[in-house]
């Protein structure tokens, strides 16, 4: 598999509260593929994901060194606007977090803050992205209802639609199915698989079977270190590092 990188992480080291959480990570994340970050809990998967859209709050005690390039642009360059970086990426969190507004407004929130005012155009954006997230048919008659009334699985797809509505290039998923029932999980997985046609997808998961189902590219993190990465079929078939082998066989988890 020839890699066209969309995100390049170079020598990324992250300290949180003086603890080193990520250690000298270097990896290219391929364009329009699903990259799955696997590893035991507490290994820094979520931190790595959050560092991609600068959600690691500089107000907390966080120290970051190294570079992350998105489309060749250094996102930690002081001149780079953080809102511009985040607009490029949609985020799905572990538990879907609806905003305190209607279903419609949840999706329209992003486009509105980025300057879309025209009601007709917003209607179209909302419909289009709810369809893209596979939620439109379930909610088209209740767009004015509070978003929290949706089931958790529907809320996760709403969050997907909300993230897609700001027209990102990248979708980040932080264990996006961990709070969902099997059927909703499957639904979200299917969406992600469809979306990789147009988007670069990065998903963190601790579920190996899920990784096997959706991954094109795998990164294995262990104790803050990037142990191994490569095309999914290669890593799963022939893990090079003994730690990867141990993780894949379930010896460490």
């Amino acid at each position, binding site marked *: 598999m020839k890699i066209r990188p969309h995100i390049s992480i170079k020598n990324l080291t992250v300290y949180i509260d003086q603890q080193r959480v990520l250690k000298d990570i270097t990896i290219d994340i391929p364009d329009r593929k699903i990259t799955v970050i696997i590893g035991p809990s507490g290994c820094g998967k979520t931190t790595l994901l959050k560092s991609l859209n600068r959600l690691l709050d500089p107000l907390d005690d966080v120290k970051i060194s190294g570079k992350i390039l998105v489309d060749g642009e250094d996102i930690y360059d002081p001149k780079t606007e953080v809102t511009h970086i985040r*607009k490029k990426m949609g*985020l799905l969190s572990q538990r879907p*977090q609806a905003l*305190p507004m209607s279903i419609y407004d949840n999706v329209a929130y992003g486009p509105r803050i980025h300057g879309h005012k025209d009601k007709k155009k917003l209607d179209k954006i909302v419909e289009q992205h709810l369809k893209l997230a596979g939620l439109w048919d379930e909610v088209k008659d209740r767009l004015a209802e*509070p*978003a929290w009334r949706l089931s958790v699985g529907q809320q996760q797809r709403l969050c997907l639609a909300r993230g897609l509505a700001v027209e990102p290039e990248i979708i980040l998923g932080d264990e996006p199915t961990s709070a969902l029932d099997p059927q909703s999980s499957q639904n979200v997985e299917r969406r992600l698989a469809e979306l990789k046609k147009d988007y670069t997808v990065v998903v963190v998961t601790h579920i190996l079977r899920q990784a096997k189902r959706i991954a094109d590219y795998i990164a294995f993190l262990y104790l803050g270190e990037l142990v191994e990465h490569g095309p999914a079929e290669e890593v799963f078939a022939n893990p090079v590092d003994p730690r990867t082998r141990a993780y894949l066989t379930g010896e460490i988890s």
Partner: protein
Amino acid sequence: MTLPLTKRRSIHRKVEEGVFKVLMVASMVIVVGCLVLILGTIIWKGLPALSLAMVTQTPKGGYYLGREGGILNAIMGSLYLASGATLLALVFSLPVVLFINLYRRKNSRLAEWTRFSFDVLWGIPSIVYGAFGFIVMVFLGLRASLLAGIFTVALLEFPIMSRAMDEVIRLVPRSLLDASYSLGATRLETAFQVVVRQCLPGILTAVLIAFGRGIGDAASVLFTAGFTDRLPTSLFQPAATLPLAIFFQLGTPFPEVQERAYASAVVLTAMILLISLLARGLVKKSTRHIIK
């Protein structure tokens, strides 16, 4: 014969539960009882003296001796003064609270010190605020006026409103903020479009608590807003207030005027009740979207 340990333990727990339930109910009865007693006294003593003239007329000559007139001057004065002060306090406390919660690290030193100073300010007696307002007035060469009263009462309301608001806004989960940030929203957009929405009932409660405190306070307006028998027409004229009207009427030696003081208290209480209900009704519609 002694009972087995688990059995004894279970009896013990049952007794414990019962005793504390009785204590709670007793506290409840005492608190609610006091409230009913206070309100009852005011209504019982004030209602007979309450008349249409009282709420539609200003004091005529000799009102405080028991002659014709009403307390419309104080009703309007209090409304203007407390509304102005509450608005002013809100304009300052919302930004302060949003700042320490969204723009600073969680539990930053600045936030802790701000909270601490609010707590201290909360405890300062209102007469001290009045004296402070008076000193500033004298320094600026102003006389007692509605505007001076508004500023002083706003000072009095500010720490109360801020602290109450802070308690709800600091509970907003980080994940909600992140959801907004990750869409490319700025802190400001997140503050006003997400946090304020989510916390609207709490913010309203804070505003109402402060409003209630402001409209009911006599000492802070004594020197700063002054008192007049006329309706307030300008920010730079003195204005009457209900707490002072009650105070003056109670201070007369005439029982019929004292009864009017209780009637004025009924009016004040009714006003607070009405405004609270109105405000709650107004935000009711926008609270249905709040994430539970």
